[in-house]
């Protein structure tokens, strides 16, 4: 590291009630370097960054800015000091143009002219070889383009300390590469960059320094050059050896649980496949290539007109008019906070959302019985905190997902549709989810929709690739040749 760090954190602590989110954290952020902040969900990464961004104040400890104690008591002060955040959920006004978003909150000029805005935006965009049209409405942009707008906002404000909160979570691999290119260029411009992530490969690829957070404390800071493998990082992160490879044993597929024939629905182009009990069929592809309408058609959220879907041997229309709550279909939606659970209900009520028929007697719903059942599931699935009275919003993403899985597996499904089941989860939680899915395979056929290729390769017995509403190919996990070609299929080149 070169000179005095632009930001130095010393003995920073922050608690929320009894939860120690950050404890005695000391960290240097240097100009011209990329610092990766690595940690599981709930390790305290976001809290630490909100302290820097002026959104909350530490209980104790000091933040030094260029060697002198600084006061980041408001977002304005943090912005003034040159700190800029690229949030995971973009802070962009959808109904405004790119240029308006970028100039929002700039403090010098009273009058805004469209021409002037355009010119300034183009200048910066060109400097970092980004291609965005200043006049376009943000609502019309792709995720990657929106992120570029977020970054341009910070560059426009001449932020020198840029903090990226899990920036690649929403990007395609190609867009992620562009982002890394931009980050390298910023590094050359001597900006300090903090990169928050739990994706080990990315951290290895881009970071100069790596700080590992675990349960609110820094457990290690090292130069990326001295790290031998991502496995080493993973061990430090979770404190035990993470089996990134699950034990996948072949199973003999039994009777058919799902058949999709000639499905032409909302941009889908003649989709045909079947799933048998005992196998996982993983569909990969860049989001927006028809996965959504396919899933909606299979789980009954969309009326099927073109094509035939047969579930457990019955036509879908017949199936959904009278299907049993158990031993049938379970759906694990991508949107676990919206579609899978009600945020304002407690875990017991959320549990009963799909299992109530198993408990009801006449018009009554005996909750005690359900509560005991749930308490048992909470222990078995290690849902934390283990309290059925908590509201769904009080659980972290990983624990909420485990809650959804426990509920759905309790129904002993024969067909499971799992959509991005490990998105946003840390390694340990993802591994749990993978093992649970593999175990569920003994009783069920599983349709797995994922954007994560490694997840599909780990879990699937057969892998399909979706592109532009077509199921490009469907092949066995042992077909090495096809697996090699997946990236090209995802990009529509084959």
């Amino acid at each position: 590291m070169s000179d005095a760090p632009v930001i130095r954190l010393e003995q920073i602590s922050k608690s929320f009630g009894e939860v120690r989110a950050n404890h005695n954290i000391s960290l240097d952020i240097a100009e011209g370097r990329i610092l990766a902040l690595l940690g599981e969900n709930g390790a305290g990464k976001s809290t630490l960054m909100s302290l820097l961004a002026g959104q909350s104040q530490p209980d104790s400890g000091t933040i030094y800015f260029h060697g002198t104690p600084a006061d980041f008591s408001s977002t304005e002060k943090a912005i003034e000091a040159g700190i800029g955040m690229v949030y995971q959920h973009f802070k962009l006004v959808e109904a405004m143009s790119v240029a308006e978003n970028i100039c929002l909150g700039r403090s010098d000029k009273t009058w805004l002219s469209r021409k002037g805005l355009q010119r300034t935006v183009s200048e910066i965009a060109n400097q970092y070889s980004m291609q965005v049209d200043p006049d376009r409405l943000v609502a019309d942009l792709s995720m990657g383009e929106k992120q570029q707008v977020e970054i341009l906002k910070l560059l426009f404000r001449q932020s020198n300390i840029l903090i990226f909160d899990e920036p690649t979570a929403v990007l395609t691999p190609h867009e992620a590469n562009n982002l890394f290119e931009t980050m390298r260029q910023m590094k050359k411009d001597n900006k300090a960059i903090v990169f928050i992530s739990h994706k080990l490969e990315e951290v290895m690829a881009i970071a100069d320094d790596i700080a590992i957070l675990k349960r609110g404390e820094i457990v290690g800071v090292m130069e990326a050059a001295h790290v031998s493998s991502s496995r080493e990082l993973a061990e430090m992160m979770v404190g035990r050896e993470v089996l990134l490879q699950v034990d996948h044993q072949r199973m003999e597929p039994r009777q058919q649980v799902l058949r999709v024939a000639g499905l032409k629905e909302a941009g889908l182009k003649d989709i045909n496949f079947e799933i048998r009990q005992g196998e996982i069929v993983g569909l990969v592809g860049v989001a927006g290539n028809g996965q959504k309408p396919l899933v909606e058609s299979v789980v009954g959220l969309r009326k099927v007109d073109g094509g035939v879907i047969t579930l457990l041997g019955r036509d879908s229309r017949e199936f959904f008019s009278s299907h049993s709550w158990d031993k049938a279909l379970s759906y694990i939606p991508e949107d676990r906070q919206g579609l899978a659970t009600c945020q304002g209900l407690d875990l017991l009520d959320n549990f009963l959302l799909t299992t109530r028929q198993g408990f009801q007697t006449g018009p009554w719903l005996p909750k005690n019985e359900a509560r005991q059942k749930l308490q048992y599931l909470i222990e078995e699935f290690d849902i934390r905190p283990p309290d059925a009275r908590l509201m769904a919003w009080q659980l972290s993403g990983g624990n909420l997902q485990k809650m959804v899985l426990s509920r759905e597996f309790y129904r002993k499904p024969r067909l499971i549709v799992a959509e991005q089941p490990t998105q946003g989860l840390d390694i340990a939680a993802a591994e749990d989810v993978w093992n649970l899915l593999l175990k569920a395979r003994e009783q069920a056929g599983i349709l797995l929709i994922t954007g994560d290729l490694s997840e599909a390769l780990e879990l699937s017995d057969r892998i399909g690739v979706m592109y532009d509403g077509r199921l490009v190919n469907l092949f066995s996990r042992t077909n090495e040749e096809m697996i090699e070609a997946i990236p090209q299929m995802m990009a529509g080149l084959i």
Partner: protein
Amino acid sequence: MNVEILIPLLAAAVQSGTPILYATLGEIFTERSGILNLGVEGTMIIGALTGFVVAKATGSPYIAFVAAGLAGTCAASIHGLVCLVFQGNQVVSGLALTILGVGVANYFGTPYVGMNAPGFDPLPIPILSEIPVLGAIFFSQDLLVYFTYLIPVLMWIFLYNTRFGLSLRAAGEYPAAATAAGLNVIGYRWLGVLVGGFFMGLGGAYLSLAYTHLWTNNLTAGRGWIAVALVIFAFWRPGRAVFGAYLFGGIMALQLRLQASGTQIPSSLLLMLPYFLTVAVLVFSSWWRGKTDEPEALGTNVLPAD
């Protein structure tokens, strides 16, 4: 219908549309900052009474007009207090403000019922009022009407060409983005509520100082509610508000003339016309699937520390 009837009718449309236009512009300004103020009716009538009383006391309609605007600001500040300080429900607070405003105005206005006050009289603009047709419709009005030719333009410039307007719109669209940009969202919402209340007060004052020069109970007669509906019809754009307001002004003027002409249609049905039209424009606006400028975060509260 010949020209001799049509021109006075259109002139009357502009005149009776003007109080609604003031109020609609006020509500647009408020809603653009993200605050839904259903207290337009109450704010207007408080402005109307204040204008009337001040005009009577000082003899100056100009002082009275400004006072009415300030009274509107005061009334709206109650809504601001509830929504921006205490995080109250915006719908309930606005409804309460309307009930409060109408009650207060009727109570304190009773002694003035039937009295006269100095107000604004038609002031034809030289040269412009000589233009055939248009001159008689638009440029033979009173001063307060002329103001409304300027205000939508100024409001548009403010909203779309200054950084303050950009910030105010951001506060209404996506407060989190505005906060992340270092803007004081609560401050901009106060601006929206208070300035919007000022215009609503002016709209009320138009009724007591120019439309009529006397005070009667329940003077606003639902015009505040029409303004709320017009905001939707206007797609939250100041320019479109002008057309909407004159459309309603036209209907109001028309039904008055029909009543005066001794038509067979029952007067109660004619009186319903503007409100029937309100329902019609709301149906039209919800049927319309094109782009409106409805603020995304309209009606949601923002925590100060957020």
